[in-house]
């Protein structure tokens, strides 16, 4: 389809109906020639250039971004340049660092005597009583191996029947993940990992987390949520949540019996894993929209619990971002779109599983393509000033129209202003705290 025909098709089918933005001379560069990216850049009339040319907007891989910001490269960005990663995004996206940062954040709040760090006793569904943070208990108990091995063993002994999940810190898409329900299995693994046949494994660190063995099931199947979160600044924190997330379903009925412990199609919802299962359906790809999840929960569980769940997810996202905001290199040329993976348990409590700094832009289905096209379109309209030309001096306060399908999660700058104007001289509870 040529450009003109596409335009007609777009208006005809009424689905993706964004108005064509006026042409302006923006030079973009990209490491990923994904169609959802390219079609968005083309529709804006942008001009593609190479990485060594004068670019204004770079959709880069995390590696390129790190290189650009490294001292050796000596590259200095000008005011009309933007890039889609923060240089040390791994503070959020590496499994071990995320855990470390959240633990530190909670400790800091506790030390300040902040009510947010209040602790409470909770009864696990296995029956034992444990002490947890009342408001900040949103990641499963996690340790980094081999460093925290002794701490892990101590925790393990408290409830020896529970299952744990091992994930290599630096890998994604479900590679290298396995479940453990006996300490001996872990010991065996660590012995094998140190043999000369696996020299690469011995260097790698793992996180081990309590496995959520009571996930919410729909139609008997397990799923996780993929939500998209856009951050345009960490200090002050400015973050937006994309309304069009989706649930990723396992193709096989959920089953915690021992025989199925090694069947990863039961446990892992990653599309890259599920795709290889015999029952993968390429029409829907095992994906259901978050709006339909909400509809289902409201219809079958009621409104109050559904609202509470969605509020808890926003809460979780905001605090995971606050946990890293002090360590992030808050470069004003940067923005980043994170893929949040969340699992909901059968008590309708959400758990943060991990954060991805380069969520997949590959489209597995038609709806997927529409969603990702909108995502990119909305990201561009939020991060760019209204004239559509990258400029780091703009105030990063997008209009309601520019938000598209994004909802404002938190904007500390706006909150501060609100406090100053609405309640002069009075201390006010922060809306999202």
């Amino acid at each position, binding site marked *: 389809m040529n450009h003109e025909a596409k335009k007609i098709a777009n208006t005809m089918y009424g689905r993706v109906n964004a108005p064509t933005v006026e042409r302006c001379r923006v030079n973009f560069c990209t490491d990923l020639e994904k169609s959802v990216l390219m079609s968005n850049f083309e529709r804006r009339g942008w001009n593609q250039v190479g990485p060594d040319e004068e670019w204004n907007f770079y959709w880069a891989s995390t590696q390129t971004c790190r290189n650009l910001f490294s001292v050796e490269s000596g590259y200095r960005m000008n005011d009309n340049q933007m890039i889609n990663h923060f240089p040390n995004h791994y503070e959020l996206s590496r499994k071990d660092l995320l855990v470390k940062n959240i633990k530190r954040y909670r400790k800091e709040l506790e030390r300040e005597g902040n009510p947010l760090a209040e602790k409470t006793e909770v009864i696990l569904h296995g029956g034992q009583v444990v002490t947890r943070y009342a408001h900040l208990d949103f990641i499963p108990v996690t340790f980094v191996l081999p460093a925290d091995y002794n701490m892990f063993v101590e925790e393990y002994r408290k409830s020896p029947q529970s299952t744990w999940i091992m994930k290599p810190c630096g890998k994604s898409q479900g590679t290298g993940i396995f479940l453990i329900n006996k300490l001996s299995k872990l010991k065996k693994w660590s012995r094998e990992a140190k043999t000369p046949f696996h020299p690469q494994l011995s260097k790698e660190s793992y996180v081990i987390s309590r496995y959520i063995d009571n996930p919410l099931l729909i139609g008997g199947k397990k799923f996780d949520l993929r939500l998209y979160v856009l951050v345009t600044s960490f200090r002050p924190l400015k973050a937006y949540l994309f309304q069009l997330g989706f649930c990723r*379903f396992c193709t096989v009925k959920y089953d915690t019996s021992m025989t199925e412990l090694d069947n990863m199609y039961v446990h892992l919802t990653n599309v890259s894993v599920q795709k290889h299962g015999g029952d993968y359906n390429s029409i*829907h790809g095992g994906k259901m929209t978050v*709006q339909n999840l909400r509809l289902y929960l*409201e219809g079958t569980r009621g*409104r109050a619990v559904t609202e509470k769940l969605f509020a808890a997810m926003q809460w979780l996202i905001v605090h995971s971002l606050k946990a890293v905001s002090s360590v992030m290199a808050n470069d004003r040329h940067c923005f980043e779109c994170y893929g949040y993976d969340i699992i909901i348990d059968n008590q309708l409590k959400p758990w943060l599983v991990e954060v991805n700094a380069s969520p997949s832009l590959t489209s597995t289905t038609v709806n997927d393509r529409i969603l990702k096209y909108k995502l990119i379109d909305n990201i561009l309209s939020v991060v760019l000033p209204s004239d559509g030309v990258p400029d780091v001096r703009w105030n990063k306060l997008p209009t309601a129209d520019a938000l598209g399908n994004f909802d404002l999660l938190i904007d500390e700058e706006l909150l501060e202003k609100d406090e100053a104007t609405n309640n002069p001289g009075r201390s006010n509870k922060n809306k999202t705290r």
Partner: protein
Amino acid sequence: MESIKEEAIHQTALKLAEEIKNLSIYKSFYNDVQKLVASPNVKKEDFKQTLQQAMKEKGLDTKLRNTVFHWVRTQSKQNKLDPLTSLSKASAQWEKRIHKSLNSMCSDLETSLAKLRPQSEQDDLSEKWHELSTYNLDLTKYRPVYAPKDFLEVLLTLSGYVPFTREDEPKWEFAHLPLQVKTLDQLRNVYVEWSNGEALLGVNAYMPSTVPGFSTLEAERISLGERVAVLGYAPVIQEYLKKGSPQCLRARLWMQVLGSEIKSQQTSYFNQLKKSVLEVDLMIDKLIFKDVQLTASNDDQYFVFEDLLYQVMLCFSRDCEIMQHLKGSIGNPLNVTIKGKQTSAESVTVFPPSGIIPFHGFTMYATPFCYLYDDPVQLYYTFRAFYIRYWHRLHYISTHPQGIVSLCLLYERLLEANEPLLWIHFRNININPVRVVFKWLMRAFSGHLPPDQLLLLWDAILGYDCLEILPLLALAILSFRKENIFQVNTLQNVDAILADLSTISVIPLLQLALMKP
């Protein structure tokens, strides 16, 4: 005059009392009343007054009223035979064709319509009952018996007697049929709340409420809906549904308005249906599996509920109560011998016991209920009640004002009267306008609209207790996209313009069509 009226009321009451004695709830209801009479609340001196009062307090009053309401609704006003002989003839022929096709599929596949399931297969099926998607069946050779487009072809040949035909009228119009349908103005009188522009759910939930004490329309509707649900009086709930139900109350309200609440009796009946699925292998089971696979399993809105749907649809086929309810509206099902069973009265079964032969997409009548009910039994009874009250009319030929023929005619008339330019455009490009909307009508838009929109549409079906909203919505969508339709001239391209309804907001579109210009 007064006395005649009173006499008539008395006669009606007597008739009702007789009828209620035949209903399944009678025994337990009578027991409850007897218990009440024996209680100290009811006084001998003032028997009538105190009993009525006590019945109100115990909720028996509402129960009795609801029973009468549901009974009255099952009494069809059209018990007479179809007045149009040509239609009944066509209907019989169509039924014969379906039966023939079933039989020939059976002989092609060298199987029989009904046979006993071997024990091993029964065990396997029973074990996998909750995950029938893993039940291995080779369905490659099974084809749906018919699809909406086949049914449409049949409808298009209904010529009737044609006294009013003019030469310049195309042959395909339903207008040849001497049936009465409403005009848009008459519809405005039916959907009076909508045409008056009253605030409806599904337009903008955050719209400010006009009732003091509520911030938004949604909050107001939820609060009112909760009170209505507690009251539990079916006619009031029906009235409430006219302006749309919040999703969180819908499951309950639909059940109440249709009288499909679950008691132990219903659960055990459902288990009986399950048992008969396990025992007898009907050829139709394969068609049901195939249909769920072709529709729900491939649909991103419903694939999650696949396993629930197998159970519900299989049980539906075994439910002979459906056939009893619909006697006279669904033709004469086949009687077949169950192979492998000793010859006796029990070895012959109606095929299928429900009398309903599914077409391609039949499962879609049930899928939206998955967003309301987790439990297969609850889902089953509300779906079944919906089917008996409404859906069967969409795939059987009849002259009923809510039947598919009348709905097609209504659509045609509405289009001609209200969108004359579109009508002419369709004439010019020689496309029958019903072709582009027929599958919407036949499936009540299920699988075409996103579930949230669909549920709002079905609220209106329950609220106004009629299906005329379906052709009206078809018209409204065409009207909304007419500029694009004007630009194309093939059926394929018109279909392409209408293929994606994911951006349609049903309620505002309908209200706009109903509000006076």
